[in-house]
């Protein structure tokens, strides 16, 4: 689950990582109320930075970060920025902070690295740019149990010394702490800024929470459905009901049990000249209700001309799938469906389907080729 910058900064603040003072507005009119108030209370001062809050990177390049020297400029900019889409994603709100005098910019992140099989620090003395294009990047494996000296070693590797080393190490400690406490996939500060007064402040923040751990993170309870920008509406709906749907641009709808089998079935469709419309894994042990829900989601896509159902029963009961199919066919009699069903309770499934005259293909390749014929 991707978080907005302001949400990442709130988490940083909860863990005593310094972030700039800010206000957040969702309407341009709020400039005259909220920003005016913040200025008059000396919470913020001009010039200010206005930043689109969007679940995408590359904001600066896309014109999503602007500076305003006074109220008029802020209001004009706010109107435009709130309407801005960045990489097709909508701007949810604007975060307004004082423009900062930057003496030095660092990059600091904690992420889970599958190649190392553990969490790692990524750091660079060249912050403020995309880390992929940075030259002096330090990567450091984080052992378990953690010790604070690991962060000091990291700061030293960035050629920091003395007071600054201690301050940056402190931030790294806190970043790792919150990464673990909140079950994150990524906690990134780019740039971590040292300002004119020598203070170390997180000028930007990016946090990705691990999807599988959300259920044990009360902080994130109920957040997921508002953080699914970038998924189509069908993908969002299916995610909220526990189905794995990824939409593509073809016309052969695909439903299987098991992620690897689903990918292999899509690949086979392409291999034999067809175009998959989606990936949908009904999961192991899907019952009649879940299978029906999955079939409905696939068929909602208007591009889908035929649905290819490939179930190789391990723990999945074929008769449950057959009953779901019968229900589905009765609701959508005109839908073309090609079925390959094999495994537990197969005979029972065949009996159930015989009553609806569904063509069953015991071989996967035959089923795929038939589906491609139907999609023409």
């Amino acid at each position, binding site marked *: 689950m991707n978080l907005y910058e302001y949400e990442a900064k709130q988490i940083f603040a909860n863990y005593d990582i310094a972030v700039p003072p800010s206000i957040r507005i969702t309407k341009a009119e709020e400039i005259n109320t909220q920003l005016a108030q913040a200025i008059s209370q000396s919470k913020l001062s001009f010039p200010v930075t206005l930043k689109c809050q969007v679940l995408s990177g590359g904001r600066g390049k896309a014109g999503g970060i602007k500076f305003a020297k006074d109220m008029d400029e802020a209001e004009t900019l706010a109107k435009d920025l709130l309407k801005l889409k960045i990489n097709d994603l909508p701007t949810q709100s604007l975060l307004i902070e004082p423009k900062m005098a930057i003496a030095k910019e660092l990059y600091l992140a904690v992420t*889970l690295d*599958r*190649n190392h*099989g*553990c*969490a790692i620090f990524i750091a660079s003395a060249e912050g403020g740019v995309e880390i*992929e294009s940075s030259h002096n990047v330090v990567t450091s494996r984080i052992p*378990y149990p953690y010790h604070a000296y690991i962060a000091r070693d990291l700061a030293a590797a960035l050629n920091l010394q003395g007071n600054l080393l201690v301050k940056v190490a402190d931030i790294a400690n806190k970043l790792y702490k919150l990464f*673990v406490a909140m*079950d994150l*996939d990524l906690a990134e500060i780019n740039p971590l800024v040292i300002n004119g007064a020598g203070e170390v402040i997180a000028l930007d923040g990016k946090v990705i929470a*691990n*999807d*599988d*751990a959300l*259920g*044990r993170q009360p902080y994130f309870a109920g957040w997921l459905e508002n953080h699914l920008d970038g998924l189509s509406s069908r993908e969002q709906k299916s995610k909220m009901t526990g189905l*794995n749907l*990824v939409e*593509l641009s073809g016309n052969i709808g695909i439903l*299987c*049990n*098991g*992620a*690897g*089998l*689903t*990918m*292999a079935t*899509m*690949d*086979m*469709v*392409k*291999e034999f000249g067809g175009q*998959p419309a989606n*990936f949908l*894994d009904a999961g*192991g*042990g899907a019952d009649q209700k879940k299978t029906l829900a999955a079939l409905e989601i696939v068929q909602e896509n208007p591009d889908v001309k035929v649905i290819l159902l490939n179930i*190789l*029963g*391990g*723990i999945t009961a074929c008769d449950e799938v057959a009953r779901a199919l019968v229900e589905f066919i009765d609701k959508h009699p005109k839908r073309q469906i090609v079925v390959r069903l*094999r*495994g*537990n309770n197969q005979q029972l499934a065949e009996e159930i389907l015989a009553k609806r005259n569904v063509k069953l293909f015991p071989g*996967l*390749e035959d089923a795929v080729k038939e589906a491609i014929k139907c999609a023409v």
Partner: protein
Amino acid sequence: MILVNKETKVIVQGATGKMGATHTKLMLNYGTNIVAGVTPGKHGETVHGVPVYDTVKTAVKATGATASVIFVPPYLTYDAASEALNAGIKLLVVITEGIPPLDTVKMVQEVKANQAYLIGPNCPGIITPEQCLIGILPGSIFKAGPVGMVSKSGTLTYEIALALTEANLGQSTCIGVGGDPIKGMDYEEVLTLFEKDPATKAMVLIGEIGGNAEEEAALFIKAKIKKPVVAFIAGQTAPPGKRMGHAGAIVSGNKGTAESKIEALTAAGVKVAHTPAQVASYVGQVLTPVAR
């Protein structure tokens, strides 16, 4: 065959739950030597005739079990695994999907510290056909023979095993290492065991998008594996940046693509099949008639 045979004594953690109970029965039907179930609070109950204990320690003391299969909800799995390791279990098979990766990191480190084996998480388990099935693989699809299988997938593994069995190319042992990005045994460890196993004459490696395990395996195969290897890689049609079901099945930027894996394996002398049926065809080719 590797790691498990008909003598292997297995306990089922989470035996009284729905998944645990269903698969205890299926494993028993297959002939697996299940000696105990463990569910805290259910001491004295039985699951399909198998006695249930409160703790792994008491179960091991009573039965001498050395392997455990874990059917426990995701946020409780790390605790269950730790408990098993602490009680002396040397082979853990974790079926559970959706374990927070930070828990898996700790689990893997503890497994290593205890010099044990972890298969999974998010996996279908391990089967030595006609001897021992630990997990949820459908036993009827497999038959004993010379092909060692290692795979990230569940049902795709069954699809390929089906093709092999129908071509009369039985399996020595099949291990599903699972679809999570951070896991216990990976390809190299399993391939090493197959290489040393006299019953295994050829290997099938089933991979999918995400990470670089297949690329690393390719280098390993080139350097260390003499027996023939046939591979199949799923996910050529997966769009970048999308999690394709498995937590580990995601192309990040241009890393972890199916193309990269197929290229690496081909360069290592591995025959990469385009369909499950083709896997059987290639395996038939690489096996000498004597070995069948």
